[in-house]
Protein backbone atom coordinates (compact mmCIF):
# COMPACT_ATOMS: atom_id res chain seq x y z
CA UNK A 1 0.00 0.00 0.00
CA UNK A 2 1.26 3.46 -0.82
CA UNK A 3 -0.24 6.89 -1.29
CA UNK A 4 0.91 10.50 -1.48
CA UNK A 5 -1.36 13.22 -0.14
CA UNK A 6 -1.24 16.79 1.05
CA UNK A 7 -1.98 17.55 4.68
CA UNK A 8 -0.91 19.51 7.70
CA UNK A 9 0.76 18.45 10.91
CA UNK A 10 -1.41 17.91 13.98
CA UNK A 11 1.20 16.52 16.34
CA UNK A 12 4.29 14.36 16.68
CA UNK A 13 4.64 11.99 19.61
CA UNK A 14 7.98 10.40 20.55
CA UNK A 15 8.22 6.75 19.54
CA UNK A 16 11.89 5.95 19.96
CA UNK A 17 15.15 7.87 20.20
CA UNK A 18 15.03 8.64 16.50
CA UNK A 19 11.42 8.18 15.36
CA UNK A 20 8.07 9.79 16.10
CA UNK A 21 4.44 8.94 15.48
CA UNK A 22 3.44 11.75 13.19
CA UNK A 23 -0.22 12.65 12.99
CA UNK A 24 -1.42 14.55 9.93
CA UNK A 25 -4.77 15.88 8.80
CA UNK A 26 -4.74 14.87 5.15
CA UNK A 27 -6.99 15.92 2.30
CA UNK A 28 -7.94 12.45 1.07
CA UNK A 29 -7.27 10.18 4.05
CA UNK A 30 -8.46 12.24 7.02
CA UNK A 31 -6.61 12.26 10.33
CA UNK A 32 -3.79 9.82 9.80
CA UNK A 33 -1.00 8.74 12.15
CA UNK A 34 2.06 6.75 11.13
CA UNK A 35 5.67 6.29 12.11
CA UNK A 36 8.09 8.87 10.75
CA UNK A 37 11.62 7.50 10.93
CA UNK A 38 14.20 10.14 11.80
CA UNK A 39 11.42 12.48 12.90
CA UNK A 40 12.99 12.98 16.34
CA UNK A 41 16.13 14.49 14.84
CA UNK A 42 16.85 18.20 15.25
CA UNK A 43 16.87 18.67 11.47
CA UNK A 44 13.25 17.51 11.25
CA UNK A 45 12.00 19.52 14.25
CA UNK A 46 11.02 22.58 12.20
CA UNK A 47 9.24 20.41 9.61
CA UNK A 48 6.88 18.66 12.02
CA UNK A 49 5.66 21.68 13.97
CA UNK A 50 1.84 21.69 14.30
CA UNK A 51 0.08 23.51 11.49
CA UNK A 52 2.80 23.11 8.85
CA UNK A 53 1.40 22.15 5.43
CA UNK A 54 3.22 19.12 4.03
CA UNK A 55 3.07 16.55 1.27
CA UNK A 56 3.51 13.07 2.68
CA UNK A 57 3.98 9.61 1.23
CA UNK A 58 2.68 6.76 3.36
CA UNK A 59 3.67 3.13 2.95
CA UNK A 60 2.62 -0.11 4.62
CA UNK A 61 2.24 -3.74 3.63
CA UNK A 62 -1.49 -3.70 4.43
CA UNK A 63 -3.92 -0.79 4.50
CA UNK A 64 -4.91 -1.22 8.16
CA UNK A 65 -1.35 -1.24 9.48
CA UNK A 66 0.27 1.75 11.19
CA UNK A 67 2.79 2.04 8.37
CA UNK A 68 5.29 4.83 8.00
CA UNK A 69 5.65 8.14 6.25
CA UNK A 70 8.43 7.47 3.78
CA UNK A 71 8.67 11.09 2.71
CA UNK A 72 7.38 14.30 4.29
CA UNK A 73 8.08 17.56 2.50
CA UNK A 74 7.22 21.04 3.69
CA UNK A 75 4.78 23.00 1.52
CA UNK A 76 4.11 25.97 3.76
CA UNK A 77 5.36 26.82 7.24
CA UNK A 78 2.05 27.92 8.79
CA UNK A 79 3.48 27.07 12.21
CA UNK A 80 6.30 29.57 11.82
CA UNK A 81 3.89 32.25 10.53
CA UNK A 82 1.70 31.71 13.57
CA UNK A 83 4.78 31.82 15.78
CA UNK A 84 5.71 35.23 14.38
CA UNK A 85 2.26 36.52 15.32
CA UNK A 86 1.53 35.70 18.95
CA UNK A 87 -2.27 35.51 18.96
CA UNK A 88 -2.21 33.24 15.90
CA UNK A 89 -0.64 30.57 18.10
CA UNK A 90 -3.85 30.39 20.13
CA UNK A 91 -5.79 29.83 16.89
CA UNK A 92 -3.36 27.16 15.74
CA UNK A 93 -3.46 25.33 19.07
CA UNK A 94 -7.27 25.39 19.17
CA UNK A 95 -7.62 24.19 15.58
CA UNK A 96 -5.12 21.33 15.88
CA UNK A 97 -6.50 20.38 19.30
CA UNK A 98 -10.08 20.16 18.01
CA UNK A 99 -9.01 18.10 15.00
CA UNK A 100 -6.67 15.78 16.90
CA UNK A 101 -9.33 14.93 19.48
CA UNK A 102 -12.51 15.31 17.46
CA UNK A 103 -11.85 14.14 13.91
CA UNK A 104 -12.30 10.40 13.29
CA UNK A 105 -9.11 8.56 12.34
CA UNK A 106 -8.57 7.55 8.70
CA UNK A 107 -11.92 8.97 7.63
CA UNK A 108 -11.65 11.67 4.95
CA UNK A 109 -13.24 15.04 5.75
CA UNK A 110 -12.35 17.01 2.60
CA UNK A 111 -14.53 20.02 3.43
CA UNK A 112 -13.06 20.27 6.93
CA UNK A 113 -9.60 19.99 5.41
CA UNK A 114 -10.27 22.85 3.01
CA UNK A 115 -11.82 25.00 5.75
CA UNK A 116 -8.78 24.26 7.94
CA UNK A 117 -6.44 25.33 5.15
CA UNK A 118 -8.31 28.63 4.91
CA UNK A 119 -7.93 29.22 8.65
CA UNK A 120 -4.23 28.32 8.51
CA UNK A 121 -3.62 30.73 5.64
CA UNK A 122 -5.02 33.54 7.80
CA UNK A 123 -3.47 32.50 11.08
CA UNK A 124 -1.33 35.65 11.17
CA UNK A 125 -4.30 37.97 10.48
CA UNK A 126 -5.32 38.68 14.06
CA UNK A 127 -8.47 40.63 13.14
CA UNK A 128 -9.70 37.97 10.79
CA UNK A 129 -9.09 34.51 12.19
CA UNK A 130 -11.45 34.60 15.23
CA UNK A 131 -14.58 34.84 13.04
CA UNK A 132 -13.06 32.42 10.54
CA UNK A 133 -12.34 29.87 13.25
CA UNK A 134 -15.88 30.25 14.61
CA UNK A 135 -17.26 29.49 11.14
CA UNK A 136 -14.81 26.59 10.87
CA UNK A 137 -16.28 25.09 14.06
CA UNK A 138 -19.72 25.17 12.42
CA UNK A 139 -18.36 23.40 9.35
CA UNK A 140 -16.55 20.86 11.55
CA UNK A 141 -19.77 20.05 13.42
CA UNK A 142 -21.70 19.71 10.16
CA UNK A 143 -19.11 17.43 8.58
CA UNK A 144 -19.12 15.18 11.62
CA UNK A 145 -22.86 14.77 11.10
CA UNK A 146 -24.02 17.13 13.84
CA UNK A 147 -24.78 20.21 11.75
CA UNK A 148 -27.11 22.89 13.06
CA UNK A 149 -30.14 23.81 11.00
CA UNK A 150 -29.94 27.58 10.71
CA UNK A 151 -32.13 27.89 7.61
CA UNK A 152 -35.52 28.59 9.21
CA UNK A 153 -37.25 29.05 12.56
CA UNK A 154 -38.05 25.71 14.21
CA UNK A 155 -41.30 27.14 15.62
CA UNK A 156 -42.73 29.34 12.86
CA UNK A 157 -40.85 28.31 9.73
CA UNK A 158 -39.86 31.88 8.92
CA UNK A 159 -36.41 32.44 7.47
CA UNK A 160 -36.06 36.03 8.64
CA UNK A 161 -34.95 37.60 11.92
CA UNK A 162 -33.38 34.40 13.22
CA UNK A 163 -31.45 35.18 16.36
CA UNK A 164 -31.54 32.11 18.61
CA UNK A 165 -30.68 28.40 18.44
CA UNK A 166 -32.46 25.76 20.46
CA UNK A 167 -29.94 23.86 22.61
CA UNK A 168 -32.11 20.74 22.31
CA UNK A 169 -32.72 20.53 18.58
CA UNK A 170 -29.89 22.64 17.19
CA UNK A 171 -32.38 24.51 15.02
CA UNK A 172 -32.70 28.27 14.59
CA UNK A 173 -35.46 30.20 16.36
CA UNK A 174 -36.77 33.62 15.30
CA UNK A 175 -36.67 36.65 17.59
CA UNK A 176 -40.45 36.69 18.21
CA UNK A 177 -40.81 32.95 18.78
CA UNK A 178 -37.76 32.81 21.01
CA UNK A 179 -38.48 35.90 23.13
CA UNK A 180 -40.33 34.03 25.92
CA UNK A 181 -37.44 31.54 26.20
CA UNK A 182 -34.67 34.11 25.79
CA UNK A 183 -32.67 32.81 28.79
CA UNK A 184 -32.80 29.18 27.69
CA UNK A 185 -31.83 29.67 24.05
CA UNK A 186 -28.37 30.17 22.59
CA UNK A 187 -27.65 33.40 20.73
CA UNK A 188 -27.26 33.15 16.95
CA UNK A 189 -24.97 35.91 15.62
CA UNK A 190 -26.01 37.25 12.22
CA UNK A 191 -22.66 36.60 10.53
CA UNK A 192 -23.22 32.83 10.77
CA UNK A 193 -26.25 32.97 8.48
CA UNK A 194 -25.40 36.02 6.37
CA UNK A 195 -21.88 36.18 4.95
CA UNK A 196 -22.27 39.94 4.34
CA UNK A 197 -23.40 40.77 7.88
CA UNK A 198 -21.20 43.10 9.91
CA UNK A 199 -19.56 41.31 12.81
CA UNK A 200 -20.50 43.26 15.91
CA UNK A 201 -18.74 43.18 19.26
CA UNK A 202 -19.85 40.02 21.05
CA UNK A 203 -20.75 38.13 17.87
CA UNK A 204 -17.60 36.03 17.73
CA UNK A 205 -17.97 35.18 21.42
CA UNK A 206 -21.59 34.16 20.83
CA UNK A 207 -20.54 31.97 17.90
CA UNK A 208 -17.89 30.23 20.01
CA UNK A 209 -20.44 29.74 22.81
CA UNK A 210 -22.95 28.29 20.33
CA UNK A 211 -20.61 25.85 18.61
CA UNK A 212 -18.75 25.07 21.83
CA UNK A 213 -22.04 23.94 23.40
CA UNK A 214 -22.79 21.50 20.58
CA UNK A 215 -19.19 20.36 20.10
CA UNK A 216 -19.02 19.49 23.77
CA UNK A 217 -22.41 17.80 23.91
CA UNK A 218 -22.26 15.89 20.64
CA UNK A 219 -18.59 15.27 19.88
CA UNK A 220 -16.26 15.58 22.83
CA UNK A 221 -18.32 14.44 25.83
CA UNK A 222 -19.45 11.16 24.18
CA UNK A 223 -15.84 10.38 23.28
CA UNK A 224 -14.77 10.84 26.90
CA UNK A 225 -12.75 14.01 26.32
CA UNK A 226 -13.87 17.49 27.18
CA UNK A 227 -13.31 20.34 24.78
CA UNK A 228 -9.57 20.84 24.25
CA UNK A 229 -8.17 23.24 26.88
CA UNK A 230 -6.39 25.13 24.08
CA UNK A 231 -9.79 26.28 22.79
CA UNK A 232 -10.62 27.70 26.22
CA UNK A 233 -7.26 29.53 26.34
CA UNK A 234 -7.90 30.97 22.88
CA UNK A 235 -11.31 32.31 23.96
CA UNK A 236 -9.81 33.63 27.21
CA UNK A 237 -7.14 35.47 25.19
CA UNK A 238 -9.72 36.97 22.81
CA UNK A 239 -11.84 38.10 25.75
CA UNK A 240 -8.83 39.71 27.42
CA UNK A 241 -7.89 41.59 24.26
CA UNK A 242 -11.47 42.70 23.55
CA UNK A 243 -11.86 40.76 20.29
CA UNK A 244 -14.74 38.44 21.13
Amino acid at each position, binding site marked *: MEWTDSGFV*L*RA*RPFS*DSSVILELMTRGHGRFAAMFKGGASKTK*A*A*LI*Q*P*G*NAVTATWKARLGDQLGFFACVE*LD*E*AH*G*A*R*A*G*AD*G*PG*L*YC*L*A*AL*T*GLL*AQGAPERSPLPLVFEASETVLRHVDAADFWPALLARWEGAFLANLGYGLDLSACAATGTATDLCYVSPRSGRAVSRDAGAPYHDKLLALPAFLIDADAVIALGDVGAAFALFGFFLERRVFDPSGFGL*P*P*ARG*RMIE*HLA*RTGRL
Partner: protein
Amino acid sequence: MRSLGPELERLVELLAKLPGLGPRSARRAALYLLKRADGLMLPLAESLKVAAERIAPCARCGNLDTMSPCSLCAVPNRDDSLLCVVEEVADLWALERAGAFRGRYHVLGGALSALDGVRPEDLRLAGLIERVKTGAVREVILALGATIDGQTTAHYVTDQLTGLGVRVTRLAQGLPFGAELNVMDDGTLMAAFAARRDM
Protein backbone atom coordinates in the same frame (compact mmCIF):
# COMPACT_ATOMS: atom_id res chain seq x y z
CA MET B 1 18.27 -12.47 28.25
CA ARG B 2 17.65 -15.67 30.25
CA SER B 3 21.34 -16.56 29.98
CA LEU B 4 22.10 -13.74 32.44
CA GLY B 5 21.67 -14.14 36.19
CA PRO B 6 18.72 -12.31 37.78
CA GLU B 7 20.94 -9.53 39.21
CA LEU B 8 22.66 -8.88 35.92
CA GLU B 9 19.37 -9.12 34.07
CA ARG B 10 17.89 -6.49 36.39
CA LEU B 11 20.93 -4.22 35.86
CA VAL B 12 20.64 -4.50 32.06
CA GLU B 13 16.88 -3.94 32.24
CA LEU B 14 17.35 -0.73 34.25
CA LEU B 15 20.19 0.58 32.09
CA ALA B 16 18.07 -0.02 28.99
CA LYS B 17 15.55 2.48 30.35
CA LEU B 18 18.06 5.32 30.06
CA PRO B 19 17.62 7.62 27.05
CA GLY B 20 19.76 6.52 24.11
CA LEU B 21 20.29 2.98 25.42
CA GLY B 22 18.59 -0.12 24.10
CA PRO B 23 18.98 -3.69 25.42
CA ARG B 24 22.14 -4.32 23.38
CA SER B 25 23.94 -1.14 24.44
CA ALA B 26 22.69 -1.65 28.01
CA ARG B 27 24.42 -5.05 28.07
CA ARG B 28 27.62 -3.39 26.84
CA ALA B 29 27.35 -0.71 29.51
CA ALA B 30 26.71 -3.34 32.21
CA LEU B 31 29.81 -5.31 31.16
CA TYR B 32 31.87 -2.10 31.10
CA LEU B 33 30.72 -1.24 34.61
CA LEU B 34 31.36 -4.75 35.93
CA LYS B 35 34.91 -4.69 34.63
CA ARG B 36 35.47 -1.42 36.53
CA ALA B 37 33.55 -2.25 39.71
CA ASP B 38 35.83 -0.39 42.13
CA GLY B 39 36.84 2.50 39.92
CA LEU B 40 33.49 3.32 38.37
CA MET B 41 30.55 1.14 39.35
CA LEU B 42 30.62 1.63 43.13
CA PRO B 43 31.30 5.40 42.95
CA LEU B 44 28.50 5.66 40.37
CA ALA B 45 26.11 3.71 42.59
CA GLU B 46 27.01 5.91 45.56
CA SER B 47 26.60 9.04 43.48
CA LEU B 48 23.20 7.90 42.20
CA LYS B 49 22.08 7.14 45.76
CA VAL B 50 23.18 10.55 47.04
CA ALA B 51 21.56 12.30 44.09
CA ALA B 52 18.27 10.45 44.55
CA GLU B 53 18.21 11.24 48.27
CA ARG B 54 19.43 14.82 48.30
CA ILE B 55 18.71 16.52 44.99
CA ALA B 56 15.30 18.17 44.75
CA PRO B 57 13.72 21.07 42.86
CA CYS B 58 14.40 24.50 44.36
CA ALA B 59 11.21 25.84 45.94
CA ARG B 60 11.88 29.27 44.45
CA CYS B 61 13.07 28.69 40.88
CA GLY B 62 12.62 24.97 40.15
CA ASN B 63 16.32 24.33 39.51
CA LEU B 64 17.71 21.01 40.75
CA ASP B 65 20.09 21.23 43.69
CA THR B 66 20.89 19.70 47.04
CA MET B 67 19.68 22.79 48.85
CA SER B 68 16.61 24.97 48.61
CA PRO B 69 16.89 27.85 47.70
CA CYS B 70 19.39 26.49 45.19
CA SER B 71 22.93 27.78 44.74
CA LEU B 72 21.81 30.08 41.89
CA CYS B 73 19.05 31.63 44.01
CA ALA B 74 21.27 31.91 47.07
CA VAL B 75 24.26 33.58 45.41
CA PRO B 76 24.09 37.33 46.17
CA ASN B 77 25.94 38.78 43.17
CA ARG B 78 23.27 38.13 40.54
CA ASP B 79 20.86 40.73 39.19
CA ASP B 80 17.51 40.35 40.99
CA SER B 81 15.78 42.66 38.52
CA LEU B 82 16.21 40.21 35.60
CA LEU B 83 14.25 36.96 35.62
CA CYS B 84 14.84 34.43 32.86
CA VAL B 85 12.02 31.91 32.33
CA VAL B 86 13.01 28.53 30.84
CA GLU B 87 11.09 25.33 30.12
CA GLU B 88 13.41 22.76 31.69
CA VAL B 89 16.45 22.59 33.95
CA ALA B 90 18.49 21.51 30.91
CA ASP B 91 17.74 24.91 29.33
CA LEU B 92 18.95 26.66 32.50
CA TRP B 93 22.17 24.66 32.35
CA ALA B 94 22.64 25.60 28.68
CA LEU B 95 22.29 29.31 29.49
CA GLU B 96 24.68 28.99 32.42
CA ARG B 97 27.21 27.21 30.18
CA ALA B 98 27.01 30.10 27.72
CA GLY B 99 27.60 32.54 30.58
CA ALA B 100 25.40 35.10 28.83
CA PHE B 101 23.04 35.82 31.69
CA ARG B 102 23.68 37.04 35.22
CA GLY B 103 20.14 37.39 36.54
CA ARG B 104 17.81 34.88 38.22
CA TYR B 105 15.98 31.95 36.69
CA HIS B 106 12.54 30.41 36.81
CA VAL B 107 12.00 26.87 35.49
CA LEU B 108 8.43 26.30 34.26
CA GLY B 109 8.76 22.52 34.12
CA GLY B 110 7.58 22.17 30.50
CA ALA B 111 5.54 23.97 27.89
CA LEU B 112 1.82 24.20 27.27
CA SER B 113 0.77 21.54 24.81
CA ALA B 114 -2.71 21.40 23.39
CA LEU B 115 -2.20 17.87 22.14
CA ASP B 116 -0.26 16.32 24.99
CA GLY B 117 -2.66 17.82 27.53
CA VAL B 118 -0.15 20.01 29.37
CA ARG B 119 -2.22 22.76 31.01
CA PRO B 120 -1.20 25.98 32.79
CA GLU B 121 -1.87 24.23 36.13
CA ASP B 122 0.81 21.68 35.25
CA LEU B 123 3.49 24.37 35.00
CA ARG B 124 5.10 26.48 37.72
CA LEU B 125 3.21 29.58 36.57
CA ALA B 126 1.70 30.56 39.91
CA GLY B 127 5.21 30.67 41.40
CA LEU B 128 6.38 32.90 38.55
CA ILE B 129 3.53 35.37 39.01
CA GLU B 130 4.17 35.39 42.75
CA ARG B 131 7.87 36.14 42.22
CA VAL B 132 7.05 38.98 39.82
CA LYS B 133 4.48 40.45 42.20
CA THR B 134 6.58 40.28 45.33
CA GLY B 135 10.14 40.52 44.05
CA ALA B 136 12.27 43.28 42.61
CA VAL B 137 11.86 41.99 39.04
CA ARG B 138 11.89 44.66 36.32
CA GLU B 139 12.24 42.43 33.26
CA VAL B 140 11.07 38.89 32.55
CA ILE B 141 13.02 37.25 29.72
CA LEU B 142 11.16 34.36 28.10
CA ALA B 143 13.84 31.90 26.98
CA LEU B 144 11.42 29.27 25.74
CA GLY B 145 11.82 26.89 22.80
CA ALA B 146 11.26 28.13 19.25
CA THR B 147 8.56 25.52 18.81
CA ILE B 148 4.81 26.03 18.53
CA ASP B 149 4.38 24.80 22.10
CA GLY B 150 7.23 26.98 23.38
CA GLN B 151 5.92 30.11 21.66
CA THR B 152 2.34 29.40 22.74
CA THR B 153 3.61 29.19 26.30
CA ALA B 154 5.53 32.44 25.84
CA HIS B 155 2.40 34.27 24.75
CA TYR B 156 0.34 32.74 27.51
CA VAL B 157 2.92 33.80 30.11
CA THR B 158 2.98 37.30 28.57
CA ASP B 159 -0.79 37.50 28.90
CA GLN B 160 -0.57 36.44 32.54
CA LEU B 161 2.11 39.04 33.31
CA THR B 162 0.30 41.90 31.59
CA GLY B 163 -0.63 44.56 34.10
CA LEU B 164 2.00 43.59 36.66
CA GLY B 165 4.24 46.49 35.64
CA VAL B 166 7.10 44.39 34.38
CA ARG B 167 8.82 44.42 30.98
CA VAL B 168 8.43 41.08 29.17
CA THR B 169 10.96 40.18 26.45
CA ARG B 170 11.83 37.02 24.58
CA LEU B 171 15.03 35.71 23.03
CA ALA B 172 15.66 36.61 19.39
CA GLN B 173 14.83 34.07 16.70
CA GLY B 174 16.61 33.62 13.40
CA LEU B 175 19.81 32.27 11.92
CA PRO B 176 22.02 30.24 14.24
CA PHE B 177 25.68 31.22 14.40
CA GLY B 178 27.67 29.60 11.60
CA ALA B 179 24.63 28.79 9.49
CA GLU B 180 24.40 28.93 5.70
CA LEU B 181 21.19 30.44 4.29
CA ASN B 182 20.66 27.71 1.71
CA VAL B 183 20.25 24.98 4.32
CA MET B 184 17.84 26.89 6.57
CA ASP B 185 14.21 25.84 6.84
CA ASP B 186 11.39 28.20 5.83
CA GLY B 187 10.32 28.93 9.39
CA THR B 188 13.80 30.01 10.49
CA LEU B 189 14.20 32.25 7.45
CA MET B 190 10.81 33.85 8.09
CA ALA B 191 11.71 34.48 11.74
CA ALA B 192 15.09 35.90 10.70
CA PHE B 193 13.51 38.30 8.24
CA ALA B 194 10.89 39.39 10.77
CA ALA B 195 13.60 40.08 13.36
CA ARG B 196 16.07 41.90 11.03
CA ARG B 197 17.69 45.02 12.43
CA ASP B 198 19.73 48.03 11.37
CA MET B 199 23.47 47.66 10.86
